């Protein structure tokens, strides 16, 4: 019975002779507004995705600059030690060089071009890993005394950041030193981890 009434009512509304231009216009307006809303939302998502991708790549390269800076600073300190001529008097003595003597250690470095800041980076040793270079003087050849590294592995943590995001990298670096020639032969990255906030 209710269904019949509904059908009748519906039939009446379609059979009326008043026209329905206004309801049609309202329907079209709603439909078009809905489509426009969906489009704007899709565009907004596209914009956000692009901005996030861009920030991630920019900050990753800055963090990599931090790892490179850390490796270069440690290498420089090792080479400094290798250049020092030690004598028999120094045999088996040890000395430590804390990382805070390294260039730019834990200090924010700014990268800019033509006065426009692109971002910043900093590096430091990972918490719980060696934070100093430790050397022992030994006789590597007859009457040739050199400072030898007590530890060849160091884990550097670097952060690259811009106004939006921070990218963190961790790299375990292994130093291969030729003490006879006094040269770093190879710097190898054994472990690499990436963290994006």
């Amino acid at each position, binding site marked *: 019975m209710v269904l019949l009434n509904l059908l009748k009512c519906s*039939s009446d509304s*379609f*059979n009326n*002779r*008043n*026209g*329905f*231009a*206004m309801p*049609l*216009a*309202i329907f*079209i*307006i709603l439909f*078009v*507004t809905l*489509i*426009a809303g969906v*489009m*704007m939302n899709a*565009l907004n998502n*596209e*914009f956000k995705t*692009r901005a996030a*991708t*861009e920030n991630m*790549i*920019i900050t990753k*390269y*800055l963090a*990599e*600059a931090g790892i*490179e*800076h850390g*490796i*270069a*600073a440690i*290498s*420089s300190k090792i*080479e*400094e030690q290798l250049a020092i001529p030690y004598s028999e008097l120094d045999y088996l003595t040890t000395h430590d060089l804390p990382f805070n003597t390294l*260039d730019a250690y834990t200090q924010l470095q700014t*990268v800019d*071009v033509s006065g*426009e800041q*692109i*971002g910043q980076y900093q590096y430091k040793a990972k918490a719980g890993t060696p934070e100093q270079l430790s050397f022992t003087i030994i006789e590597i050849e007859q009457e040739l005394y050199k400072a030898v590294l007590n530890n060849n592995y160091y884990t550097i943590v670097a952060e690259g950041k811009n106004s939006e995001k921070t990218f963190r990298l961790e790299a375990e670096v292994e130093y291969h030193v030729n003490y006879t020639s006094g040269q770093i032969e190879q710097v190898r990255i054994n472990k690499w981890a990436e963290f994006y906030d």
Partner: protein
Amino acid sequence: MAVKLFNNEKGFSLIEVIVAMVLIGIISAAFTSVVFTGSKASTSHKLELESLMIAQDLMEEMRIQRDQDIDLLDWRATRFALDAGTWKSSITKDGYTYEVTAHVNDLGLPSIDLIEVVIEVMYEGGVNPVYLATRVRV
């Protein structure tokens, strides 16, 4: 019922038709504007993303040169041309032209050989260039 609807001989009133046309016109104009702006923004996003990819490609190319012990200033001189004090190059991809500028600076740090490399890419008609910057040991 449908037959009755289409056989309705009265039709819409003139006022209704005019009001409906005006409303539909206004909404169509707004919608067209939204579609046009959206399409423009979408193209601009695509070009910015492409600029980023070009910058990334050049960064990786630079790294390969560094790993092969090639002087980065030599790489820059072969890959870019000096134009009014800056090293520039033009890349065309999918019908769009991108202007690339390479900044290679020795940081001059005492006893540390660290070079700063900044790649700047901007598509033709673009406003904001994309910058990728890093520092490498040499």
